[in-house]
């Protein structure tokens, strides 16, 4: 049995230590917002927060995640600036990569509330979107930054 803390809830799962966190989140906890796409950490669709940092859940074993604070897209508050900005700017097309993308952005903004263009690029070049929503993502990031600034809240 492995204990996991996901989105503020404690879970106990009976899985081998080496299982990627991704499959535990999806198959056992039924939190399917976190997506499988490449399984090798190239695309970012499976990104979650582990102790506040953006991590690829396909490349981290459930054992390594034990005892840490895990947040998935479902745990990112509904009024989070990134979620609101993504709706306002209609960023998504097929939407499959976007939960991972949004988790990547949320982690970036929590670390750097007003990121420079280079800082944005260095983080966002880690994700792939086959629909080609990159320009909308950029817009979404700007809007999320403005929302945070205006509302004076910490992301």
């Amino acid at each position, binding site marked *: 049995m492995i204990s996991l803390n996901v989105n503020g809830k404690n879970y106990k799962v009976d899985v081998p230590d080496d299982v990627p966190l991704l499959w535990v989140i999806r198959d056992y906890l039924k939190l399917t917002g976190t997506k499988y*796409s490449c399984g090798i950490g190239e695309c970012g669709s499976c990104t979650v927060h582990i102790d506040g940092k953006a991590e690829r859940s396909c490349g981290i074993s459930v054992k390594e995640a034990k005892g840490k604070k895990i947040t998935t897209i479902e745990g990112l508050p509904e009024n989070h600036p990134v979620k609101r900005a993504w709706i306002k700017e209609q960023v998504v097309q097929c939407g499959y*990569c976007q939960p991972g993308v949004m988790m990547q952005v949320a982690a970036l903004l929590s670390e750097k509330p007003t990121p420079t263009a280079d800082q944005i690029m260095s983080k966002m070049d880690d994700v792939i979107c086959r629909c080609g*929503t990159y320009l909308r993502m950029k817009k979404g990031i700007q809007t999320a930054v403005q929302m945070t600034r205006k509302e004076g809240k910490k992301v």
Partner: protein
Amino acid sequence: MKTSMTRRTFLKGSLAASGLTIAVSVTPFGYTLLNAAEKKDFNPNVWLHITSDNKVTIYIGNSEMGQGVLTAQSMIIADELEADWKQVQIRQGEAKDAFKSSLLGAQITVGSGSMRGFYEPLRKAGAAGKAMLVKAAAETWKVPESECKAVLGTVKHEKSKRSLTYGQLCEKASKLELPQNPPLKKEDEFRYMGKPMPRVDVPEKVRGKAVYGLDVNVKGMLYAVIARPPAYGAKPVSFDQKAAEQLKGVVKVLQIPMGIAVCATSTEAALKGKDALKVQWDKGTLPDMDNAYIEKLMMADLDKQGAKVHEVGDAKKAISEAAKKVEATYYVPCVAHATMEPMNCTAWVQNDRCDVWVPNQNQTACQGMAAGITKLPPDKIHIHTTFLGCGLGRRAFTDFVPEAVMISKALEKPVKVMWTREDDIKHDKFRAPMTHRIQGGLDAQGRLIGWSHKTSAISIMKPVNPNAIKDGVDYYCLWGLWDAPDSPHWNNRIQYEIPNLYIEFLMADLPIPCWPWRAVQNGPNAFPIECFIDELAHAAGKDPLEFRLQSLKNNKRATRVLETVADKAGWGKPIPKGQGRGIAQHACFGSWVAQVVDLSVDEKTGKIKVHKVVVAVDCGPVINPGPLVEQIEGSVIIALSTALKEEVKFAKGGVATSNFDDYPIIRMSEVPEIEVHMVKSTDKIGGIGEPGVPPLAPAVANAFFNATGVRIRRIPLTPEIVLAAIKKG
């Protein structure tokens, strides 16, 4: 969007509920509108259902892959129905004859056809509903219909200040005769069409609640992965079934025609089981095949006699007598769909029914395949279309359905088959590679007088529908250059006015399965056509824009997009030193698109940086402007990815490329500024999901020539290819 499971419950409920129900049903001659009350055996999956709770439920048969079809088709119905958008609920329909496109003859989301096929029928369905509701109100109040007006879900009688909601009227309206040709709104009366509406699928996707195929969960479901052959035609020689079945969580190993399936209680157990199989395969049908083999074979094809596709005038004579002759050979390699959600399918075969949950673009094929395997009648096959984690045409080839149905049937349990990313790329049905040899002739005034075009491609239709090949010609491979006379795709052919034109086709004999990829072969045909036009313009000593316009004198829509893009991009004005600028146009699926690309080339590293792409589009009436621009941006970006980066690698008779580490896809820092300009047009409505793709690659190659003076006649323009070309000069 409700998930498929709750959708079923909803359907049950809505069947019991009465109200006004209108469907569009295809006939051999087009389509007809149906009223549920008139027909006892009425199909419960309908376009439009108005119930006494004042809800308007719209069922959409097309698949949502991010193009916004749920929203756009609903906007059309709601607008003509004069419904309040707030009372509209939208549901994804199952596989039903009622959802077949009268344009394409199947329930299929391809060919940029959702608007082309449904614009008119959906308008009429909505308008028929409105007319019946107005009539019902007039009869209730015993006043002339002309005094009643429908406004936002309510019929009003101004004189007597009376009003009734659609919910109150639907019962009575359902007893009325349905008009086949109701009056449609005029453009200035449109309430939703042409105005930006937020897409209905966006919020749940942002919340992480949208259900894609891989997210389907059926109680008691098993997870399956399949060990698939590494080379085309390879058969398993041996595998260790025991080793896999001994693993915790593995339930069953099953050999099926597609490979060896491992079924388990979790994804990770299935994956471990697959590794434990240690399958040995034989060498397959063509173990020597690699990229060099493919290119050599297809280039050699161009020296053979092919099948005549089209001939007007005498191209050979015109070219031989021309003042100037130009000849060039082009190559466009295989590219992969690589949708972010890998292929997958969940099936549950029971004695009296079969449920299939599947992200797909072809419900008709899914249903037919499942019926074939289960021997159940089609109405017992329930196809639940989930959201699609991108489509690009791949999900219209429904090879993922039979394997899931076979396994579920054998195990008598619900089974989800997941393709790994490696499966998805190695067993993709690629965009067909093509070689082209074009000869062109100019007269003394530099006018285009002759064009002779020979091309070789892997056939798209041969493995799936050999009857579609006429006299050795697979028109699917030729879209953009030429198309069958009875094609439902309207204008997938070369737009230039050429007095002497000859087209010849060869079918490349290779075992690689190919299938439509966004814009189908319009991309691999537009590339040589638009590059060659540029070469001809150069030979004629003319400006590439002017040269194009000269051969498009009678083509209003092509001229309009070219003139618009030239104006917006500042064509002819000086550009920054070191940069190059290129132009291209192409028409397909009823829409015309022109693009201007600005780029620079680092001649030391061979890297190309695209700075800006300006696009002009004429697709006729615009339904939802926001998603339309997104589709064009997405088309430009994916096409740029193929122009600069993507090429599938083959080795040992199979696919060597396996994942995103060796199949590079464009990322954010490589994406240029994109400007999209819509040409105001009242012409026939065209498609928008694909026509943005074809002009991009040739515009890049033409801009590269403008920057360097060097022609590259193949894609992708990778640094290696660029450096080699510059060295060669």
